[in-house]
């Protein structure tokens, strides 16, 4: 190739490298355009999620609605006793989580908040992650934010948690030595065997996953991803997963909450 052709080519590469430098912990970026996992799902999954009656996820919402009005613990108080109609009191709440709880000054998600309420205000034992009851209540509360944009605030109080979550997203891990960004930023829309890789947002959770044959929490889904790259699974409710949950919420800012979603 003659010199005058090589130099423009080199400049092209240099210029392109600047434009398409992948997102990193130093430069975290939201995927553009922001797309829900539903956009990467087939027609059957979309049909399941969008039919409120036949969506398998709604069975847990029905249970959650019942539990909302049931007295719990030594207090004999129900959620409704303080919060009345969830459709009003819980509207938009899930969309703003996870957040720092003013009482404990700790980063807390909806599951944590529900358990805190149970222990403190209802004198009832905390519910286990993936238990029918906790999934039902989280799904029911999450439903009250359905259609609203994810809206978390990063401020000096949760900055450290955010940074830890962000670093985790961009750090290679596991036997496969992959970071979340490798699949969910650089390869969304492409196929992994027969699966189409999504952008990895948490907006439909808790969701009914066909693979689980039941509804599961976001932490369960994250643990599945850790297993996917053969890394150690952080426990559900751990600081690691909470930090990651916060970063994921920031990363999906503006995307509509879809709880309770249906995914494959």
């Amino acid at each position: 190739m003659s010199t005058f052709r090589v130099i423009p080519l080199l400049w092209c590469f240099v210029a392109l490298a600047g434009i398409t430098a992948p997102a990193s912990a130093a430069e975290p970026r939201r995927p553009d355009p922001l797309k829900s996992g539903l956009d990467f799902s087939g027609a059957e999954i979309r049909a399941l999620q969008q039919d409120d009656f036949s969506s398998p996820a709604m069975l847990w919402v029905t249970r959650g609605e019942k539990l909302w009005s049931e007295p719990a613990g030594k207090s004999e108080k129900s959620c409704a006793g303080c919060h009345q109609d969830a459709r009003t009191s819980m509207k938009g709440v899930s969309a703003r989580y996870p957040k720092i709880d003013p009482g404990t000054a700790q980063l807390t998600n909806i599951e944590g908040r529900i358990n805190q309420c149970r222990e403190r205000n209802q004198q009832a034992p905390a519910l286990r992650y993936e238990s029918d009851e906790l999934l039902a209540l989280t799904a029911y509360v999450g439903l009250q934010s359905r259609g609203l944009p994810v809206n978390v605030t990063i401020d000096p109080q949760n900055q450290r948690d955010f940074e830890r979550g962000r670093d985790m997203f961009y750090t290679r891990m596991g036997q496969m030595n992959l970071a979340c960004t490798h699949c969910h930023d650089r390869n969304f829309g492409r196929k992994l065997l027969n699966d189409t890789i999504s952008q990895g947002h948490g907006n439909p959770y808790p969701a009914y996953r066909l693979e689980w044959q039941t509804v599961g929490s976001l932490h369960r889904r994250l643990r599945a991803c850790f297993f996917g790259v053969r890394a150690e699974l952080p426990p559900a409710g751990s600081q690691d997963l909470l930090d990651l949950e916060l970063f994921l919420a920031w990363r999906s800012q503006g995307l509509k909450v879809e709880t309770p979603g249906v995914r494959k």
Partner: protein
Amino acid sequence: MSVARLLVPAQAKRGEVIEIRIAIQHPMETGFRMDNMGKVIPKNTISNLLCRYNGTEMFRAEMGSGIAANPYLQFYIVAQDSGNVEISWVDDAGEKGTASATLTVLQ
């Protein structure tokens, strides 16, 4: 106790074919899965589901592990007289469940 959702139209005209939809929370355990300790999880599926309309059997489903977890059925019945549509089922463990709804039939 498992959750069930039953959808029956609130009212119908006499002779009209109406759609019945039922969704039940149930693992429909196949009997082929093993737990984390390697022990087989025993089979437990909803085996017999019956739909009765004012006491008369209209529809019956004998299901097995080939039906997906949290079974969902959508079928039809002819609206005749106002009354009760009742779905009842039993699973391998002997647990019974029912869901019912009232149907008003306009003449």
